[in-house]
C-alpha cells in the first residue's frame, strides 16, 4: 500500500513497508541520495532532515510517521545552493570528504532558524553530528559567519 509524503514541497507516493526508515525511503525508493547513511542508530546525524522544521535523524524515523508532515532534505535546502550556509561552506572550504556534510548543513540550518545568533554553547548543543575528518572548527566558524552576515543585513 502506498504512503503519500511531502518531500521538498512535492507530494510523492511510496510503495514500501510503513516500518521502513525514512532514510531508506528517500535514498532507495525516491532516489534522493543526498541524505546519507552513517550509523543507522541516530548517533551520527549524517541522515539529518527537517521534519516540520525540526532537525531529525531519518534513520530512526519510520515512513508511517512521515505522512502528513513536511520533509525537507539537503536537495531542498535551497533550489540553487544559495542558502547562506551552502555559500559559506564553499567559500570557507569547510568539507573534507563531505559525506557527513549534508547532515551537518541541515543541523546548522535548523539551528540558525531557531537561534539566529547562536553562541558556541548553542552550536555545541544543536550540532551534534559526527565528522570523522574533523571539520568542526570550520563548521563552527561558518555558522558564526552566517549569523554575523545575517545580523549585518538585519541592521541595514
Amino acid at each position, binding site marked *: 500500500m502506498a504512503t503519500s509524503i511531502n518531500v521538498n514541497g512535492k507530494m510523492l507516493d511510496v510503495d514500501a513497508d510503513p516500518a*521502513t526508515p525514512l532514510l531508506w525511503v528517500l535514498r532507495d525508493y525516491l532516489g534522493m541520495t543526498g541524505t546519507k547513511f552513517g550509523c543507522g542508530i541516530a548517533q551520527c546525524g549524517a541522515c539529518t532532515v527537517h521534519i516540520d522544521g525540526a532537525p531529525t*535523524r531519518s534513520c530512526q524515523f519510520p515512513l508511517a510517521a512521515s505522512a502528513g508532515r513536511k520533509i525537507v532534505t539537503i536537495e531542498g535546502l535551497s533550489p540553487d545552493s544559495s542558502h547562506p550556509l551552502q555559500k559559506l561552506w564553499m567559500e570557507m572550504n569547510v568539507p573534507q570528504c563531505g559525506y557527513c556534510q549534508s547532515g551537518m548543513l541541515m543541523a546548522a540550518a535548523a539551528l540558525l532558524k531557531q537561534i539566529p545568533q547562536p553562541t558556541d554553547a548553542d552550536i555545541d548543543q544543536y550540532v551534534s553530528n559526527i565528522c*570523522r575528518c574533523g571539520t568542526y572548527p570550520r563548521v563552527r566558524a561558518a555558522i558564526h559567519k552566517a549569523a554575523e552576515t545575517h545580523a549585518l543585513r538585519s541592521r541595514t
Partner: protein
Amino acid sequence: MNQVTGIDRRQFVLSTLAAGGVLVVGLHEHALGAELQAIPWDRDNPPGSSEFTPWLSIAPDDTVIVRVTTPDIGNGVVTQAAAFVMEELGTSWDKIRPEYASTNRDYRDGHVYSQVAGITGYFSGRSTGPDRMKTYMQVAASARERLKAAAAAQWGVKTAEIDAQNSVLTHKPSGRTLRFGEVVAKAAKVKLEVEPTPKDRSQWTFLTKTNPAKVQIPEIVNGAAVYGMDVRLPNMVYAALRQSPVHGGKLKSYDADAIKNMPGVLAVVAVRPQENKPSDLKPPFPFGVSTAQHGVAVIADHYWQARTALDALPIQWDDGPGGQWKTTQQMNDAAIQALEKAGEKIEKSVGDVDAGFRSAHKMVEANYLTPYCEQAPMEPLNGTAMVTKDRVDLWHPSQHSQMAYMVAADESGIAPEHIYFHQTYVGGGFGRRIFSDDARMVVAVAKQFPGRPVHVIWSREEATRQGRYRALMAGKFKAALGTDGLPTALLARASGGPGFSVSGLADTACTGVIPNVQIESQVVPFHVLTGPYRGPGYNSNAFFVETFIDECAITAGIDPLEYRLKLYEKWPDIGWVKCLREVREKSRWGQPLPKGQGRGVAIANWGMRGKADAGTTVATVVKVEVSKEGKLKILQIDVAFDTGRVLNQDAVRAELEGGTLFGLNMSLNEGLTIKDGRIVEGNFDVYPIIRMADAPRTIGVHFGGLSDNPRYNEIGEPPAGSVGPALGNAIFQATGKRIRSTPFRHHDLRWT
C-alpha cells in the same frame, strides 16, 4: 525531534574552552569554478576534444580535462592536480575539469598513469610528491607550447611572439588572438623539438599565491555528489552482508528457507574465500591483504528489505583458532609478555647498548600499550558490481583504485582488459579502503547474481567488526641518561599482532641522535585483521617514543620542551628545532599555569625513514585542565609543522586541523574490545567519536616551523602522531599521573 544521544563519557567529560588560536579561512576563491562533477566516472570526452597526452585533453570550448589517478578522500588531491596544470597551461581555473584516470586504460596502455608514482600510482594521497608535480607541470607546459606553435603556424609568425593567458593565445606584436579551443586539433599534433622547462617557483602566479577550495565542494553542499553508497543503476539490487564474527572463521551453515519468502528477497549467497591461484597480475599490494572472509549476503529489491531479512537469517559459524582469544586483557598480556624476551627481529642496532646502560647516570624504563582501532570512515563500506560472463563493472569508493581494479579481476577470474572500475566519491578513507578487501567481497557477492548491478552494503556494525584495524601494539623502553640528562643508550622492544610496524620508532630522529640504540620487534600470532590507519605504525610509535622522551626529561629534571630542543638540535634537520621553537612561542610555553592545568609537548615525523630533510615533522602543544574529580578539559592546541614547503596554505591548514582531531580521538576514545575472538563494539554509541562540543573550538596552526627545504611533503597523516602524547604529557603536568596506554578515557585522572 533531534534524536541525539550522548556519547559514552565514562570517567570524564571532555570539553573545551575557546582557544587562543586564530582560524584563518581560505581566501575567497570560491568564484574559481573548476568542477569535479557529481558523477565522476564515465564521462565522454567533449566532442572534438584533442588529447595532448593521456593526462590532458582540451575541448573546442576551451574546457581542459585533467586526468587524476588519486581518489579524493577529502584531502584535496584532485584540486592539487588541477592547480599544477593551472600554473603552466595559461588557462583559467573555471575551465579546468578534473576527472579520474581509467585504471583499465592504465593496464592496457603500458601503465601510462601508474608508472609515475609506483605502488602509490592510484593511491589517494601524496598529491604533492615530486613525480606527480613534475608530470603535471611538464604536461601542461608542453601543451601550452604546442598551442603556441599551432597558432604561430596559422599566423605565420614566431612562437616566441605568442603569449598564452586565460585560454587565449595572443600575438603580441599585432594583437591578434585565438582561443585554445580554436587550435587544439592542430596543437595536439605538434611535436616540439625541445620540451619546455616548467617555471621556477619564483615565477609562479597560482601555486603558493592562491589557495583554492576543493573543486568538488559545490557538489557536496547540495547533496549531488555520488559516493559509493549513492550509486543508482538500472535494474540494481541491494545486498546486506554478514561475515564470520571471528576473523578467519568459517561459515558452517545457514537456513535460506527461513527468509526466502520475506518481502523483496531475491537470493541468499554464501562467500567462501577462493584458493590462491597463480596470477600474472602485479597488484600494488599483494593480493593476500585483500583476502575474502567467509560470509553470507541477502540480495533483495531494496536495502532495508535485505538487511531485515539478513537479521532474521539463522547462521552457524565455526570460529576457528581466533576463538581462543577470550578477552582483550588476554591479548594485551600476551603482547606485554612478548616484550620480556629479546625480540626475534633486530630492527636497528647502533653502538653498544649494554655498555651504555653500565655507565648510566640515571635509568628510565617504561612499558606502553595501544589497542586495536577502527578507521570508522563516515561512509560505511560498500560497493556496486555487475558481473557478466566476460566483463566486470565495479563502482566503488576506493582509496586505491588500481588495487581495487586488480582485485576485481582476481576475484572474478575475468581478464583485466574486461574490468571497468568506476571511482566514486569517497566518504572518508583513513587507510580503510586501500587493501580492497571490500572490493573483493562486493565482487564475490555480485558474481553469484550475474547480469544485474548488485550494491553490497555493510551496516555500521558490520563495518566496525570486519575491520582492517590499526594493530594492537606494546612497547618496552629502557634508556640510560648521561650526566647532562640526555639519553646515551636506548633499548626499545615492540610487539603486536601481525601488521604492526616499527615505522616512527626504528627510523625516527631520536634513534638517530642517541649513540647506542637497539630496536627489536616480536610478532604475536593474533587472528584480528589489520591494515593501514592514518599514519600506520607511526600513530602508536609516536605515542610510545614521545611519552618516553617526556619521562626522560622529567627524570633528568629538565623542562620537556627544552629537553627536546637539546636532543633534536643534534639531528641534522633544522625543521625539528624550528617546529619546537615555533610551538613554544605560539603556545606561550612556560607561562605559569594554575594548579590542575598543564601543557604537554610532543614532536614526531611521518615518512622520514631515518633521513634528515625528509617526511613531515609536527610539533604539538596541548594545554589542559583536569579537575580533582578527574574531569579533563582541553584548553588549547597549537601545532607547528615542517613539510619543507607549502603549496596551498588553506589545504594544509585543513589537514592539520583534521589530522589533529583524528589523533586526539584515537588517543582519548578509541580501543576495540575482544570477547571470544569477536570484536564487541559495533557502532558510535560504544565507539565514540568526538563531536563539536568535545572538539577544541579552534586549533592553532602555525607556519613558522617550515624549513624551506625543497620538498612539499604530505600532511594528512603526520598530525595524528604528535597530539596524543602531547595530551598525555599535559595530563602528567596537570595531575602527576603518567598515562602509558590509550584510550585515555579508560584512565582515572583524579588527583589530590
